[in-house]
């Protein structure tokens, strides 16, 4: 077995298999576990999926939302057990893989069009691994 295969073999069990299809531009809910003292609760962070980077267990996602007129971006490892669940709220249309231009946008232009084109690539919500 090659070195890369050995590493993938070790990571295999830690990878999430129940991920919904998350495409760039989608508005998503991220259910993150937060530990306060002894108790654990879930905090939901809703925003636009701006960026996916990395491969395999190192893949991370960046989600951007606006809180009190201040842009907030959070980045998580996609396969981190801290995240209990992802939910897709709205499909957004995006022609690029990284939506860094959203940082410069103000007001209405912040919003992305709903995606109607290319929807046929997604065969049933939550089953495929991502838009090709």
């Amino acid at each position, binding site marked *: 077995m090659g*070195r890369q295969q*050995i*590493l993938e073999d070790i*990571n295999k069990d*830690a990878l999430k298999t129940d991920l919904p299809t998350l495409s760039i531009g989608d508005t998503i809910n991220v259910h993150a576990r937060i530990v306060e003292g002894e108790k654990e609760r879930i905090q939901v962070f809703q925003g636009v999926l701006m960026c996916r980077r990395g491969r395999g267990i190192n893949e991370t996602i960046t989600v951007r939302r606006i809180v009190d007129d201040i842009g907030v971006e959070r980045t998580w490892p996609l396969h981190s057990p801290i995240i209990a669940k992802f939910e897709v709220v709205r499909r957004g249309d995006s022609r690029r893989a990284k939506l860094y231009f959203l940082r410069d946008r103000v007001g209405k232009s912040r919003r992305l069009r709903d995606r109607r084109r290319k929807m046929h690539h997604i065969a049933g919500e939550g089953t495929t691994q991502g838009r090709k």
Partner: protein
Amino acid sequence: MSFVIAGKKIGMTRVFSETNQSIPVTVIELFDNVVTQLRSAEKDGYTAVQVGYDEVKPRRSTMSMIAHDHKAGTTPKRHHSEFRIADTSEYTVGDSLGVDKLDGVHFVDVIGTSKGKGFQGGMKRHGFKGQQATHGVERKHRSPGSIAGHGSNAGKSGRPKKGKKMSGHMGDERVTMRSLDVIRVVADKNMVLVKGPVPGANGSVVLMRPAVRLYRSKAAKAAG
């Protein structure tokens, strides 16, 4: 000192702990470490265990080495090394040392050969600060500065002191990483996951032994 076993650095990845933290780990695949010879005080003047590891095609080895390994009842091995141990009675020639030796070991020292960096200046090699970027400094922003003065103790009799840190060849040397946490032992694959980086390129040979000495914080962790 206790035993030393050899392995191959596979590469780095991450694992998630029970507390959901991401831990950077290096994967080390242990070789089949076969005891090929025992050194005794009577015959050799010291006691040690010699192990051979890393399979090699017979035509890549020499007849004398093949015979040496054959005497221990094993296939030809690429590398042989010894570790000193006062009492060799628990080892016999032909024994195979694997991950089971690491039962109950929480911290290990990992020894490897660091990646060669070539000829490097003082800033990269020794962490010198260099000169200022501005205030009249010209064409010597990364120079090491003065190396001696004719009257100073730093270099008596007008010449630099022996061992003065200067630019030169960096890397490609034996480096010991002490007290690395053992995150996981994969027994059926003869693999060990240790926390953090390990010297050398992926695929290179590293040596592993139970930690010789623990830092204070780790000693408390080992006890508790």
